[in-house]
């Protein structure tokens, strides 16, 4: 809401927003990132979404004088010009270990000294985490030498700007700064072109990247890699490709770097702009790949070829996902059984029962399932996606149980209700909502990740 109000202020209208107190820091920080230094608001003690309507009304009545005052009280004077700031974690924020410290944001480098290696290393780990600059796991110290070695993984100049406004905080991402994150995440130079392309992909998502990076839901980017780079960079497309495990070290390093880029360049720090209520392990790293030879054996098209790239191109694709399901396949060796299980699972919460743009996902099919499907006549990924999409379903009765009227009816609900037919049923979603990938080992276990929105593919050759 801060960005909407800021955009309206920019158009010359005084605004006031009602903000739940846990979101005030996010509200102010988001306004600042678009150049609005004083965005008027009043603070409500509880999220209105969790209150009965009568309590919402009572709270609004208490805040009325303040709402009027915010629209009629002069603001501090602001001079025009460019605001230049470092991305910060909003020092003073309360964290489980205490108050978040403001790190030495203006120093180009930071020096730690101690009696021995262990003391120096401990200081680095402790301070980087205290300053909010890590994902919570140990980091590799980004020494100048290591960053220079990482930069050997691309022909691009270190000063090349990938984006001058990575959302949500609109940080400027240079090749050098991404290399710093890559070192900290444990990546190697042979991963670096993939990492740069992943950063480009995050920027290319556009304004909707805010939805991925700055939400109360556990949304996160899912990446997959296609083309010769998969083998060249040692990216795991087989067993346990999403990790953990040393086989997936490249996947993990690439995904972990993406998260650090989101934080230290995009400003998606937990509690500042990332407002995730519970969180998800998926947010540490979520990178997989398709293997060309596996796809050729099946006669299936690689994802990037279906999007107009050449088979010899190497690409990385980003989508937004929110959670995942597992299809055990136990007792359902029939092809249609597997697909119906996936369709039914996607139809649950967050599927048709959610909102239109959430009714889909990324379906990751294992080796055995892929072969069962091929033998059963599903000779293309498209035919599989079409089948799943046509069997996703929703029932108005169920929907109203979940999103009924006791706490008030949001515009989301109104929109969703209009989608049911006269029998109160939704039968199928657009096939475009389903993306099928061949991922993982030769066993009959499959997964799907819900949502799969904002698919954006970048040619890795641009960053080699």
């Amino acid at each position, binding site marked *: 809401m801060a960005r*909407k109000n800021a955009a309206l202020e920019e*158009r010359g209208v005084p605004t006031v*927003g009602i903000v739940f107190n846990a*979101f005030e820091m996010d509200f102010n920080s988001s306004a600042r990132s678009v150049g609005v*230094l004083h965005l008027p608001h009043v603070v409500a003690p509880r999220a209105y979404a969790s209150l009965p309507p009568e309590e919402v009304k009572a709270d609004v009545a208490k805040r009325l004088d303040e709402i009027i005052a915010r629209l009629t009280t002069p603001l501090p004077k602001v*001079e025009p010009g460019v605001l*230049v700031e470092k991305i910060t974690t909003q020092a003073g924020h309360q964290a489980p270990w205490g108050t978040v410290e403001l790190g030495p944001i203006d120093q180009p480098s930071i020096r730690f000294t101690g009696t021995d290696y262990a003391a120096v290393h401990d200081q680095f780990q402790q301070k980087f985490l205290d300053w909010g600059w890590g994902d919570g796991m140990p980091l590799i110290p980004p020494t*100048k030498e290591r960053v220079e070695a990482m930069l050997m993984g691309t022909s691009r100049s270190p000063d090349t700007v990938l984006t001058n406004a990575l959302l949500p905080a609109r940080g400027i991402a240079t090749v050098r*700064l991404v290399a710093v994150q890559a070192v900290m995440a444990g990546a190697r130079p042979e991963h670096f072109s993939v990492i740069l392309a992943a950063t480009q992909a995050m920027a290319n998502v556009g304004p909707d990247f805010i939805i991925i990076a700055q939400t109360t839901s556990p949304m996160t980017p899912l990446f997959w890699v296609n083309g010769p780079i998969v083998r060249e960079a040692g990216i795991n497309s087989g067993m346990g490709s999403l990790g953990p495990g040393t086989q997936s070290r490249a996947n993990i390093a690439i995904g972990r770097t993406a998260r650090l880029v989101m934080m230290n360049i995009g400003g998606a720090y937990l509690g500042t702009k990332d407002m995730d209520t519970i969180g998800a392990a998926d947010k540490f790293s979520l990178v997989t790949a398709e293997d060309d030879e596996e796809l050729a054996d099946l006669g299936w098209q690689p994802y990037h070829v279906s999007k107009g790239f050449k088979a010899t191109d190497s690409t990385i694709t980003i989508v937004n996902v929110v959670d995942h399901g597992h299809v055990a396949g136990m007792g359902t060796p029939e092809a249609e059984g597997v697909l119906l299980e996936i369709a039914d699972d996607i139809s649950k919460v967050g599927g048709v029962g959610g909102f239109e743009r959430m009714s889909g996902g990324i379906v990751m099919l294992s080796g055995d399932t892929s072969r069962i499907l091929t033998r059963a006549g599903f000779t293309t990924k498209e035919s599989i996606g079409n089948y799943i999409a046509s069997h996703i379903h929703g029932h108005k009765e169920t929907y109203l149980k979940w999103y009924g009227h006791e*706490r008030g009816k949001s515009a989301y609900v109104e929109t969703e209700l209009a989608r049911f037919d006269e029998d109160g049923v939704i039968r199928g979603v657009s096939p475009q909502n389903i993306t099928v990938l061949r991922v993982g080992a030769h066993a009959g276990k499959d997964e799907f990740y819900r949502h799969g929105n904002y698919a954006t593919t970048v040619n890795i050759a641009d960053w080699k």
Partner: protein
Amino acid sequence: MQAKSWKLLPGLRGSLVALALAAPAAGAATDEAALEVLNPIAVMEVQRVVQVPRLRTLDGKRVLLYSNAKINSDVAVREIQTHLAQRFPTAQFRIVAGTGWAPEPKFYDELMAWKPEAIIASTAD
């Protein structure tokens, strides 16, 4: 005692395993050690927005109430309108139900088409 920088074996750079291997045995090092690392934090550059002066009163003004589709945001703006209409009977009000998603530019054009003089938005979150 002179401070000295330490380096990892080049072939082992970038690895947690390497870090552990490169560390001297516990208690072995007595010299002062130093580690210099690059700052990972980005900078942002944005034009400051010079906001228009606030209103003197809401009397006679066109007040747009924006509900961003979160549950009960519509309840909140309707209640605000009820109270404000009593206090400022010459004010005009319009309620708009919007979206929680990042809006297209035309969204703002549609809001501005009504020529609002004040906007009240609910809720975050």
